């Protein structure tokens, strides 16, 4: 990765060298944070319970022990405080990585994010840069009580000045968190918490894709399927299940939600003529609706069916006993694929 070297002038630490190994998505982020912290002393981790506890999901496990309390900071319990002080730190060249404990608790920090983090660069005519990463474990499917399963990514994608990404697998987790840290723009980094413990083989010698790119995961001529974060796994399972019935799905992982990288998706839809999007978020004013709007604009003459969206309902995230009904799953995806093919 080229970018980090730009940010290493004051590093006197040995480079972190991970080995080929099987890692979970949680471990991928942990290793990525470690690599970034080794590479640049200006990288700080801050948030609620991130120090001694290693975070409620243990994503920052061991970091305070190895990098000290100045660089891995258990903050007082206040999201506006966390984000607001990160702004001041970033103004003096630090690269704070803020952890929000759960999706539903980002909102006390919302004002700082949308009024300050997003706008200071613009307000200062480019003089102030805010390389802040805000990590957010998000999404449902973990049987939690309210405020612990939400998908608030669209609020942030809607705000100019913020970049928004979501990783879907362990290897991306490792690379994308570092790329987000080296970004000079603020990045909302959404982590699919129900995929934290999914595993993959990691090889540090394989170089990563650029952060601001979507990725094609399967090839197929029948229907294009676009997911991100927690729904990528469902899309892949959908492709496997559809293949058994002789249908070919071309699956994309968006990875970057703002800016969107839809060029490859347009190409795919021009070929398949059909698009199904899948996301846990409510569909009203969502990433999925944005994808749908752009695809119908760019691929109008190729479309053979309306773009179909498989989303959560436009209700509050439900009590855990009903999340199965609420969440997009394989059946709902395949149903949408069939409907798309039925036009």
């Amino acid at each position, binding site marked *: 990765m080229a970018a980090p070297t730009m940010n290493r002038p004051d590093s006197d630490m040995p480079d972190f060298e991970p080995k080929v190994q099987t890692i979970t998505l949680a471990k991928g982020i942990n290793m990525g944070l470690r690599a970034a912290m080794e590479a640049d002393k200006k990288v700080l981790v801050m948030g609620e319970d991130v120090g001694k506890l290693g975070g409620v999901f243990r994503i920052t496990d061991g970091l305070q022990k190895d990098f000290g309390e100045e660089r891995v900071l258990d903050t*007082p319990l206040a999201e506006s405080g966390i984000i607001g002080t990160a702004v001041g730190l970033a103004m003096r060249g630090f690269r704070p990585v803020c952890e929000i404990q759960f999706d539903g608790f980002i909102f006390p920090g919302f004002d700082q994010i949308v009024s300050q983090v997003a706008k200071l660069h613009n307000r200062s005519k480019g003089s102030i840069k805010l390389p802040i990463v805000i990590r957010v474990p998000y999404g449902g499917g973990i049987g*939690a009580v309210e405020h612990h399963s939400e998908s608030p990514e669209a609020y942030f994608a809607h705000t100019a000045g913020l970049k928004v990404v979501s990783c879907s697998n362990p290897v991306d987790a490792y690379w994308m968190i570092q790329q987000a840290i080296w970004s000079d723009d603020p990045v909302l980094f959404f982590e699919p918490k129900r995929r934290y413990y999914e595993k993959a083989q990691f090889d540090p010698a394989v170089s990563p894709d650029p952060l601001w790119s979507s990725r094609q995961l399967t090839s197929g001529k029948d229907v294009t399927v676009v997911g991100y974060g927690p729904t990528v796994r469902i899309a892949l399972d959908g492709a496997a299940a559809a293949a058994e019935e002789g249908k070919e799905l071309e699956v994309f992982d968006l990875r970057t939600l703002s800016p969107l990288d839809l060029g490859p998706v347009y190409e795919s839809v021009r070929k398949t003529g059909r698009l199904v999007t899948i996301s846990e978020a409510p569909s009203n004013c969502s990433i999925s609706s944005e994808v749908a709007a752009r695809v119908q604009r760019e691929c109008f003459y190729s479309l053979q069916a309306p773009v179909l969206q498989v989303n959560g309902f436009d209700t509050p995230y439900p*009590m855990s006993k*009903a999340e199965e*009904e609420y969440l997009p799953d394989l059946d709902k995806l395949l149903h949408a694929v069939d409907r798309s093919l039925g036009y």
Partner: protein
Amino acid sequence: MVLHAPETGHSTLLPSAEPVQLIDEHGAVTPHADYDLPSEAELLAAYRALVLGRRFDRQATTMVKQGRLAVYPSSNGQEASQVGAVLATRNDDWLFPTYRDCVALVTRGVDPVGVLTLLRGDWHSGYDPYEQHVAPQCTPLATQSLHGVGLAHAARLKGEDTVALVFIGDGATSEGDFHEALNFAAVFKAPVVFFVQNNGFAISVPLDKQSVAPSLAHKAIGYGIPGKRVDGNDVAAVISVVSAAVERARAGEGPTLIEAHTYRIDAHTNADDATRYRDAHDVEAWRGKDPVSRIDAYLRGTGALTEELAAGYAAEAEAVAEDLRRRLGADPVTDPRELFHHVYADRERLADQARLLDEELALEEGAGQ
């Protein structure tokens, strides 16, 4: 640390150097200049509520281990704070509880199953707030403090003499909403009491990383309201101190901030591993200050608590536990269609999506046959 209060009579706002205690950990009375011991009848009622509350809490803890609840934040060790604070209110006073305050709700008379509805994952709240004057248990920290202020102000506007009691944890006092609530309450002179259960920790973060104020109660003076400190494991002291604040609010003299010093004996929730951040010796030391055994010792000492009474309360507590086991053991009846029923007052708003779910459920039922 010596704090110099301004010359404007504000020294009365400062909390005492030591938390108010009326009964010590061995059950001996420790007389206090400003607070009287509650009557024997009140203390017996408190004892009963503590026994019921503790049994409820233990049963819930067992049921979360059995997977009958999604999560349970235990009140173990904090029962005297919750019971005492609720018993200091009238039944038409409002409570603004957090997820932690299940024992407070049971004490107020909310159906124990309703108390656990949220934590069981059946719905986001399991009781009608207007029935027992208890707001839905609140998870986004400190946000309920402002609701308490608004509701208290509403009581004043409506000419009622009800008071709002806001429950909040030590960690949550760092949130902006808590400070806004203190200030609004002070400026509105709202009849609200803020009751902080300082149980030593947020999740893993200890109080000294949360605040370096001489005490959390000291935060009151900056807003121009009195701060009080109380031994949160002494139910007698909690009743007396909270009663005084509630009556002060009822009399139109404005809000009070109370810090109850207590300890969370269990982990933050069943999902937490407290051994990662605290010393087992500390937990043991606090077990020695148990809130139930001291009032037990005191009341047996005075002769008020007879074997017969104690056995009766214990039997009542067993009945509560048995009832919980029975009703929470049964498979829940949740209708996913309810998802759409209460999003807007205008039910038609989501009718199309409700139909979508109906179709899916019909498909599933069809497939299941």
